[in-house]
Structures are given as C-alpha cells and as structure tokens.
C-alpha cells in the first residue's frame, strides 16, 4: 500500500476518474484533494460569497461524481468537465434566485455590502483589496464573472473556458476584455502597489 500513495498523485484526473468508477476510494480522495478547494473558491465567487451554499454545492458535485462517474466522458478533459458542471449548477442557482427574488440578473442587492468608490477610501490595504475585488466581481454580469474567474483565478486557458461555457473563443476574449477593464476601473482606488 505504501507504494500506491505517490502513484495516485502522479495519475491524471482522467485516470483517477477511471479508478473511481471501479470503486477506488484512494483515487476519490486524491481527486477531492485536487479540486475541492478550487471548486469551493469558484462557488464562493459565483454565489455571492455564500459559504454554506458553496459547501453544499461542492458536496453535491462530488456526490454526483461518486454516484454517476459514467457521466464523465473519459475522452474529455476532467478539468473542463468539472467546471462546466459547476458552472451549470451556478446558472441553475441564478434561475432559482430570479424566481425567488424576482430579479433580472439573479443577484441580490443585499450582497452588495458597500460601494467601493465611496466607503473604502483610506482603507487601502491588501486585505481590503481582496474584499473589494470580490465585491467588484459580484457586480459583474454572470457571463463576464465566470469568464474572468475561470481565466484568472482557476487558470484555465481560453480554449478550455470555451469548452466549459460552450461558446467560441472570440466571445471569451471579448468577455475577458470587458471584465478586465471593468475590474481595473473599479479597483484603481486600492492601488495595492502604492500601499507597499
């Protein structure tokens, strides 16, 4: 058994999924270790920093992987597949929120805790930058936020994002351009470089 431990770390995501479908618990543990944190962060960014909801979403996603590993096509990239599933879960949640709150974009005004341009002047610290960044992300449209998060937080390539969101690469570049300009404009007051 000692010999197996490092080998699981060397296995690809797709290889781990193959083992999970055969009931290999260690493979599942390894896959969970790789993706639970990033997915939780992704859900939190996409679901208005709601930790409880994000935990539930992580749980549901991995439960799907356990119960229905065959849903994953072994010919595909696991990373793009798992983020596309996560993204679809978020979209479903937006729809639920729209129905519940009667809002057009699925975002609740209660989640906009502060106006970065007014309330945070003078609190230019790194810790606040993070908070301001998250808040600015919330203000972005869903489609721009998901593209930006997948590219700059999760580290997916433009091609992978196109696969996850099932749109063409040109659209992804356009959305990234808009989101980057928007965030740069809204975060300029924090100027983390000048704070150091």
């Amino acid at each position, binding site marked *: 058994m000692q010999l197996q431990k490092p080998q699981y770390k060397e296995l690809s995501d797709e290889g781990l999924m193959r083992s999970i479908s055969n009931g*290999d618990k260690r493979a599942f543990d390894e896959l969970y270790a790789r993706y*639970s*944190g990033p997915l939780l962060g992704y859900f939190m960014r996409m679901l208005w920093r709601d930790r409880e909801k994000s935990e539930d979403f992580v749980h549901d996603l991995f439960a799907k992987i356990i*119960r229905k590993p065959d849903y994953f096509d072994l010919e595909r990239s696991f990373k793009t597949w798992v983020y596309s599933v996560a993204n679809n879960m978020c979209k479903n949640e937006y729809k639920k929120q729209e129905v519940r709150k009667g809002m057009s974009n699925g975002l609740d005004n209660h989640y906009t805790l502060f106006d970065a341009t007014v309330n945070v002047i003078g609190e230019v610290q790194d810790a606040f930058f993070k908070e301001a960044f998250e808040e600015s992300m919330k203000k972005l449209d869903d489609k721009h936020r998901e593209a930006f998060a997948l590219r700059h937080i999760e580290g997916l390539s433009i091609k992978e994002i196109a696969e996850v969101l099932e749109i063409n690469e040109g659209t992804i570049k356009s959305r990234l*351009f808009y989101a980057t300009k928007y965030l740069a404009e809204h*975060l300029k007051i924090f100027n*983390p470089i000048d704070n150091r």
Partner: protein
Amino acid sequence: MEKELIDLIAEKNFDQLNTTDRAALGDWCTSEEEFQQMKDLFFGLEVLKNEARIEPRQETKKSLDDIFAATHADPKTILWYNTVWFIVYPKEKIFIRRPLIQMAAALVLLVLISPLFFQTEIISNKAQYAKNEIKKDAEPNTDVILTNEPTNEVQKSAKKVHIDSKVQNEPVFAAQDELIVSREIIEDEKLAEITIFAGAAPSVVAGSSFDHPDGIFKGNNAIAFSQTTKDQPGFLDLLTATF
C-alpha cells in the same frame, strides 16, 4: 488577455513601453492611467492567488466518504486488483521495464522459438522413416511370400474365418432342419402316429420324391415313414420344442 500581455504589464512601466509593446497592448491600455489600473489589478490577483486557498469543511468530506462507502460496498477486491495491477504495470516506469510487458515479450519469444524444437523432432523422425524404407527395398520378396503363402497366423485366421462362417451358417442349417410335422389323427386312441418330413434329411427322404420345396408330400410314390410314439419317445420332446 494573453499571458504575454499580463507579463508585459506586470514587468514594465508605461514610459518603458516601446512601439511594439504599445501595439501589442492595443485596446487594453490606451493611456497611462489605464495601464496603471491594469497593473494594479493583476498585482492584486497575484496576491489573491498566493493566499492559502479555502478548504471545505471536514463534515463535507465525511459525508462524501459515507456516500462512497454506501455506493461501493466492497472495495477490497478493487484494492487488491489495483495493487496487482500497479505491481505488474507501474506507470511510473518506462514501457519496456514494466513487468507485464516483459512477461508478454518473453511469452512471444517462447512462441517464436518453440517451432524450432518441433522442427528438430520432425527431422529425426524423417530419418527413421527413411531407414524403414531402405529395409523394405532390401527384402522385397519377403512381402511377396507373405502375401502368396500365408503364414501360420494367416492360416489360423483363415480357419477362424471358416469357423466363424460355420457358426454363422448354423442357424441357416437349423432353419433348414426345421421339421415340418403333419399330424395324422389316428383312430386308435392310444397311438398317435406322426408323419415327419425332414426336408434336409436325405437318408430319410428320397431326393426325387419331394418336388415341393417345403417338403409337402404330394405323390403316391414318395417314401414316407410313420412310427408310433411308443417306438420313438424323443419325438414328443421334439414336438414340444417346436411348438
């Protein structure tokens, strides 16, 4: 934004950009202010990335472990299979050093070599056949004699065949010897005279006297005999066997 542009923004100041850099940046940063905003944003993103990632709670993992245990009830066999598989086919080793590949290669080699051994055996057998053929050529008359003048064994077998044919023919003779008995009821109560015709008993019946194949008496000149059962009590036994 491509990684090269992000690196360009992160590494240089606006006044350090040359014409090529500014052309590459294009619409991303048209002014120094925008360039500085981009710089701040990507620097802040690096800070965020370097921070420890949040991890799900232990309860989440424990719940998933329970689901896994319920879904896959008996993982021992799988683990055993994986253990064996990892030993015979370790992926960290190069292809030709994996034991399974080496065993397969040895097997293929064995299969390829084995015909050579069989071929040697065939050659030795051929030599023996050739020797036998020479013997035949050396004594050709023996075979002829054997065929023309049968040995004791052949004679014996011939006799046996003869005996066998006799044995086989016995029922035929028995059938021929089957007695056709006609009874003549004689008025005398004490005597029952039985006329017996034996088709295959030339000593008893004259050859020309019976022209019917069944031996039925037809003419007056036929020789027949009649005896009383007192004189020949064995006839009764014969009758009993017949009927």
